[in-house]
């Protein structure tokens, strides 16, 4: 485990921002930290990054309790980003890299490597305010990863990026992950979760409401829905035998009692000599799981 959150609670005044949350982030994984606005994600991230401390519970990074050296092992890109506008890009990166514990020499070396990778070697003496927003995002990304952190925490990393830069950053994240960096993604964009994450935790109202592997969760949440595509008309008694779900897209969706019933359905269709062009189990999207779970726990 790269990160282990044990029974962590954080209170502000009377408000409980994080309420006895427990989960683990496997080493080398891409992990989704999900939840609606105000669920307690930022409070949780702030505890992991040692900006604040938990009132109860324990957080361990790579088996070690959080300590003064923890910040040097974590790279955090907050959703609300910022840089010193008047500083030169090179100096700014040197400053943040050194604050993360790099020596001057190493910082310079790492920054040069990233500049080359992004093809921005001539940016060193530019002022931050001279850069476009997308360019600033690139710099922000470098500041997050320049010290080679074990754990990368990215809060909505693609917001405000154009498709080209999104791909660029996405590729870099993948490369870092392949090189062994564990990554925590905090996002609302569920298609990104499905695309990138292997594990997720869903937080709502400060509580852990869903945790596990993406594929396992999808299977858990499936409602035994099957889609049938056919040019033929279904027999009149079809509706008595199977429950047809109302759909808007013209396909026939059937909800079965359990997954073993799918054979029965297929057999019936064959017996009735229905020409089936497509037969498919419908797995829930993460969007649906997210909304369902949040609504369930709201009550």
């Amino acid at each position, binding site marked *: 485990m790269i990160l282990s959150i044990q029974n962590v609670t954080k209170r*502000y*005044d009377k408000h409980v921002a994080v309420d006895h949350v427990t989960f683990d982030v496997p080493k080398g994984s891409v992990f989704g930290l999900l939840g609606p606005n105000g669920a307690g994600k930022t409070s949780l991230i*702030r505890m992991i*990054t*040692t*900006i*604040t401390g938990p009132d109860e519970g324990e957080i361990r990074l790579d088996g070690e309790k959080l300590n003064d050296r923890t*910040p040097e092992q*974590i790279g*955090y*890109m*907050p959703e*609300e*980003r*910022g*840089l*010193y*506008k*008047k*500083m030169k890009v090179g100096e700014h990166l040197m*400053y*943040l890299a*050194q*604050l*993360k514990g790099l020596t001057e020499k190493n910082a310079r070396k790492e920054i040069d490597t990233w500049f080359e990778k992004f093809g921005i070697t001539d940016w060193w003496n530019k002022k931050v305010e001279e850069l476009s927003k997308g360019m600033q995002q690139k710099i*922000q990304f470098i*500041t997050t990863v320049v010290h080679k952190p074990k754990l990368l925490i990215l809060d909505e990393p693609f917001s405000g990026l154009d498709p080209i830069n999104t791909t660029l950053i996405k590729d870099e994240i993948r490369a870092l992950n392949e090189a062994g960096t564990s990554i925590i993604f905090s996002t609302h964009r569920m298609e990104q979760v499905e695309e990138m994450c292997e594990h997720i935790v869903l937080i709502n109202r400060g509580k852990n409401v869903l945790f596990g592997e993406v594929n396992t969760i999808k299977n858990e949440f499936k409602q035994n829905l099957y889609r049938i595509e056919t040019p033929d008309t279904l027999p009149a008694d079809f509706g008595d035998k199977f429950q047809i779900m109302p759909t808007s897209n013209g396909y026939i969706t059937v909800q079965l009692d359990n997954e073993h019933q799918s054979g029965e359905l297929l057999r019936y269709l064959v017996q009735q000599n229905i020409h089936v062009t497509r037969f498919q189990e419908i797995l829930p999207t993460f969007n649906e799981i997210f909304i369902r779970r949040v609504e369930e726990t709201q009550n």
Partner: protein
Amino acid sequence: MSKLQLIIKREYLTRVRKKSFIIGTLLAPVGLLVYFLVIVGLTKYESGGEINVVVQDEAGVVGIIPDEKGVRYIPSGGRTLEQLKEAVTEGQYDGVLRIPKLASLKQNDLTIFYYSDKKMAPEKREFIERRIANKVRDYKIDSLHLDRASLEYLDTDVSIDPEKITEKGEDESKYTIGVGLVIGGIMAFIMFFMVMMYGQMVMRSVMEEKTNRIVEVMMSSVRPFQLMLGKIIGAGAVGLTQVVAWIVLSGAVMFVVPLLVDVDPQAMQAPVAAGQPQIDPEMAQGEAFRVFSELGKQNWTLLVGSFVIFFLGGYFIYSSMFAAIGSAMGDDYGEGQALVLPVTIPIILAFYIVAFVGIRNPDSGLMVFASMFPLFSPIVMPFRMAFSPPMWQIILSLVLTIGAAFFFVWMAGRIYRVGILLYGKKVSFKEIGKWLFY
């Protein structure tokens, strides 16, 4: 380099390299230079050029007056007033000065008349009045058969020279107070200026970091306390740099001015002084000597040493409060004004105490209290230092100031840590109070 050092370095360098800082630092002494040149130029300027005045002395008091300060006195030579007026109209003279007869030697009030269609410059008018008054005085002395030398003895310059009774007290002279006021005043002013200007600079910088959201990135690398402390120390170092630069440059200006213009020490005095008996150069030298000996009498090691400590104490107390206020404020500076006021009031109050009470009596009860109270002491005590207050008061004040500095920095750290990460909330003092115990 430690994180704190890195922060201090950045805070210092980014400010010192700013154009506004460089311009401000260089321009202030240049402004001073221009100011002095203008003053010197103005005092050397004489209004109106020379005028010719024909004097009709009906009283027979003035005799012959030598030409002085752009005024030429011409005797009437027995001509009547009408003839003289005509001569003025013809342009021979600028005006006629008629001195009527004195009613008696007891007359204390004499009106003399000046006939002309042109106005006389106030400066010349004053000068002529004084000159005639002196002449009348001489006339009276002669008429009353008074001994001029004896009269000189009547004027006595009285000054109190404080002397201590016991040995441990040090001898003071009349210069002690004056020199003390100047030294104390300068120190109080520097303190006031630095605390106000650089304290607020810290506040704005904290606000800026909060509004442009860099703070969240910073917080994941350093402790909030490190960032706050680094900022305070960095800005303070900038302030010291500026003050030292100003002192050096001003010193250079003071040295350069006399070389650029030929400054007559007498000319630096206001024109009112003109015509009064000249100060004996030997006496003037004695005066300067006594001022210098008074300066020498000050315990400079103690004075400068404690000034530095008070400066640091006061700066830390106030700039940490400003930092805390800045962290609690949102991007709306106007809204935050209500929070700033309670911090600026004590500084201004301390300055007023010095300006209105300290100057009249540096050892009054209020001054003693104010020099102990940590919010006032950094400004009030350096002022009192020049008047050699009792040692126990200095030490107590120093201890209280240092203690308060630590306390305020600690307290500000507690507030800053919470405030800096809080957005979109209007904050009251009650709310800030709660943060102390988070």
